């Protein structure tokens, strides 16, 4: 096949006459390279808008709830959280899984879509990667502080210590430590490597306008990038390798998170489909959050030429696909609970749907399985307000999924005498509520100081960068 290109063209090729179904353009209005640079850099170079300050102050206020919650926890003890027998593992693990799941879309868009050569990822990957890192930060708060004496959190790592205390390596919680920390590290590296050419652009633009301080700072992180052929060659290779590393990582993290539950014997937790089901759910929730964040950004900064209807379409379709996969997993869990003829499994699922947490279960089903089905309709996908509302539903639904899994199985276990009902304390609620502020503060700083889209990558998918542009037979 090495000589395929030189073989005589077969007669059938003379008959080739494709029907016309044009491909969607990824940058509308045939925007020039300069326009793209000005548009993206302009967000950073311009005066800080009022709305940004308003949002930032509100986000800081909301974040203070987390600060207050964990300060109170550290000062008082973990008893301020709502963990009680039989739910000794409630609210923080729900929030941990919720946030870590959100991060997954960033890696999916960056790494997996990169390996699959999906060019539409270019307009949204930077912000999604940033979202990943900030979501991992929010997720990390809960396991770190749930140890109570947070200054002993380093005991999570297998470091030699004077008490000869070693971790339980058979516990998936210990695997989480390695999986999440590796994932966080690689996500930061991936994000940073992608940023380097754009940081160099900002360095040069600030230098040209005489802002030496900012030019120096951007230049410091641009690591002497000059855009030479060798730089680009190394950059592309590094990016591809990181994509290759990040892809199994993104699967491993949520697989191990699913093991936190599935390796146990608790009905409703111990089921073999958990690993792919959790990964699909994580991608689903992550895309929900990407839509939640990108649609307002698109409107505020008038990025319609860069985040086109086609991008929104693709994101909606992935949300629909992963939501349906999650629906398949719910159905399979329910079916096999019945098929297994195990009375405990059967009870757990009936209890989920019709027990004291039925309200949470049906919120989960509605938001994760039912409402995403609206994305089948083009009319829905082209209504950005409706898409945004539905993306909020996804976020809500996926939080409730974790709540349902964790609380329904623990509140009614094998011993009816120990059954209970989990209610979070005000500290629980404050701490979780505040993480939205933490996330928002970080995201607002990101859009203010870093290019929210990879300029070079977007330029590569414009019509003018296409060597076949203008020819239908390429």
């Amino acid at each position, binding site marked *: *096949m*090495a000589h*395929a*290109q030189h*073989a*005589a*063209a*077969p*007669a*059938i*090729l003379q*008959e*080739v*006459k*494709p*029907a*016309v*179904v044009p491909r969607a353009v990824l940058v509308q209005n045939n925007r020039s390279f300069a326009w793209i640079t000005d548009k993206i850099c302009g967000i950073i170079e311009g005066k800080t808008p009022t709305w940004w300050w308003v949002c930032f102050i509100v986000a800081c206020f909301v974040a203070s709830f987390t600060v207050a919650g964990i300060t109170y926890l550290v000062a008082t003890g973990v008893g301020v959280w709502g963990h009680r027998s039989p739910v000794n593992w409630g609210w923080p693990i729900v929030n941990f899984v919720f946030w870590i799941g959100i991060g997954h879309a960033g890696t999916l868009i960056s790494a997996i879509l990169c390996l699959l*050569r999906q060019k539409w990822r270019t307009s949204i990957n930077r912000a999604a990667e940033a979202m990943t890192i900030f979501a991992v930060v929010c997720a990390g708060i809960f396991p770190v502080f749930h140890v109570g004496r947070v200054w002993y959190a380093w005991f999570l790592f297998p470091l030699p210590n004077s008490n000869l205390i070693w971790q339980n390596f058979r516990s998936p919680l210990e695997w989480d430590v390695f999986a999440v920390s590796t994932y966080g590290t690689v996500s930061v590296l991936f994000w940073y490597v992608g940023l380097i050419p754009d940081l160099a652009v900002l360095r040069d633009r600030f230098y040209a306008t005489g802002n030496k301080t900012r030019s120096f700072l951007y230049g410091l992180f641009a690591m002497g990038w000059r855009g030479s052929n060798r730089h680009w060659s190394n950059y592309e290779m590094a990016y591809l390798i990181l994509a290759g590393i990040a892809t*199994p990582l993104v*699967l491993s993290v949520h*697989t191990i998170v699913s*093991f936190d539950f*599935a*390796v*146990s*014997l608790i009905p409703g937790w*111990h*089921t*073999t*489909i*958990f*690993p*792919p089901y959790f990964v699909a759910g994580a991608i689903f929730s992550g895309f929900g959050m990407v839509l939640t964040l990108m649609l307002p950004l698109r409107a505020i900064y008038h990025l319609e030429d860069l985040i086109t209807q086609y991008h929104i379409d693709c994101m909606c379709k992935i949300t629909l696909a992963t939501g*349906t996969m999650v629906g*398949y*997993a719910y159905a*399979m*869990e329910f079916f*096999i609970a*019945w*098929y*297994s*003829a*195990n009375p405990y499994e059967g009870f757990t699922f009936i209890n989920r749907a019709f027990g004291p947490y039925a309200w949470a279960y049906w919120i989960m089903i509605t938001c994760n399985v039912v409402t995403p089905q609206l994305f*089948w309709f083009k009319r829905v996908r082209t209504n950005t307000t409706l898409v945004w509302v539905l993306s909020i539903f996804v976020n809500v639904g996926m939080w409730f999924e974790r709540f349902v899994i964790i609380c329904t199985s623990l509140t009614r276990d094998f011993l009816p005498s120990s059954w209970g009902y989990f209610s979070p304390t005000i500290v629980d609620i404050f701490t979780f509520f505040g993480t939205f502020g933490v996330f928002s503060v970080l995201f607002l700083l990101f859009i203010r100081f870093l290019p929210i889209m990879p300029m070079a990558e977007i330029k590569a998918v414009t019509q003018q960068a296409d060597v076949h542009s203008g020819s*239908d*037979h*390429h």
Partner: protein
Amino acid sequence: MSTPAASAPVHSTAALAQKALVIGLAGIVLTALGILVSGPQAVAYSWLVGISYWTAIAIGMLLMVLIHHIFDASWSVVLRRQLEHGLSAFKWLALLFLPLVLATLFYRLDLVWPWMNPAHALAGHETVAGDILYTKKSSFLNLKTFIGMTALFFVVWIWLSARLRKASFTQDADGDVKWTRMNRVTAAMGLPLAALTLTFAAIYWIKSLEYHWFSTMYGVWFFANCFRGALSVSVLIMLWLWRRGDYKGILNNNHLHSVGQLMLALTVFWAYVTFSQYFLIWNANLPEETFWYNLREYGDWWGTGLVILFGHFVVPFLLLLSYRFKVTHRTIRRIALWILAVILIDLCYNILPAIKDAAGHPKPFLSFNLLWVLTSVIGVGGICCWSYFRSFPTAKLIPIRDPRINECLTHHE
């Protein structure tokens, strides 16, 4: 179902079709003769392996075509036409499934699936009818539902295939984009349907052989094997057409590379799914789940499990990491054949230990009965190949009016 092509392809496949039919019929006859040698049960199980194997490959082809349309993919347009020919096998597979149903109905109810006979004796002087683990699910596991559901699976697969083939073949003649849109609609509704039918086919046909056992991952495991089988067959078809000269100037290295990458991805996915299922059951160590694997640690099944571990994952994974191996005809053909062989072993591993000896141990894998597995695979496979070769001249070699055909012909990395 298909529109005759305006011109015949480069080479005729009539002789090949005839050869495949003869081989297929010979396989079927030999399998039938096996009843006289090894008895009806061993042969029936072998037939189940054969039919499951080729149905899995056909389902994989269906999934590939559906996924192609849903993604509006371009690189796989040329390959898609061959997969569409492969889809013609479903109706014959339905027909070939019939002997199992007829033998159950008219010969012995528990010939293959023990739960079909309420009087089937279980270990411990119990019968299926008195087994609480059966009665709880008897509304699902009973003869009528089994036949109805199996018929439904084939109806869905045949119907989806007919729609996909009709739209694609007709577009060759009229070039109307409505056929592309129709295929996208078929893909959108077909993917959930295919996912559900393949899951329940795996549960009914294979998992229910040991009906005490359960695993929510089972449908995903079957999906992975279906997809891997179809990808491997795709490689063989591509190389065969290249060798004949039909695909010269049409295919390039990048097509093979893309298929090879998918093979690598699905190899990892299969390992992920299979490991997760094994690990979660092993770690929980619940007797109601572990017995299924314990049976498969008995006798030569232990070694068979290791062959699957290394043969189904480690070897193809390491080989498929190489770009060169993916695009070199000889190596990728060998890898594809290897994967097809190990999928067969994987199906045997899931099906055959359900045949127990008097002590309740699974009968050995390496025995004379293995011959009937091979004749079944050859028999069913011959008919599937015959169906493919019959369909081959009914359409153009490549979808000449597909909107993405030019992108496919110039596919680059």
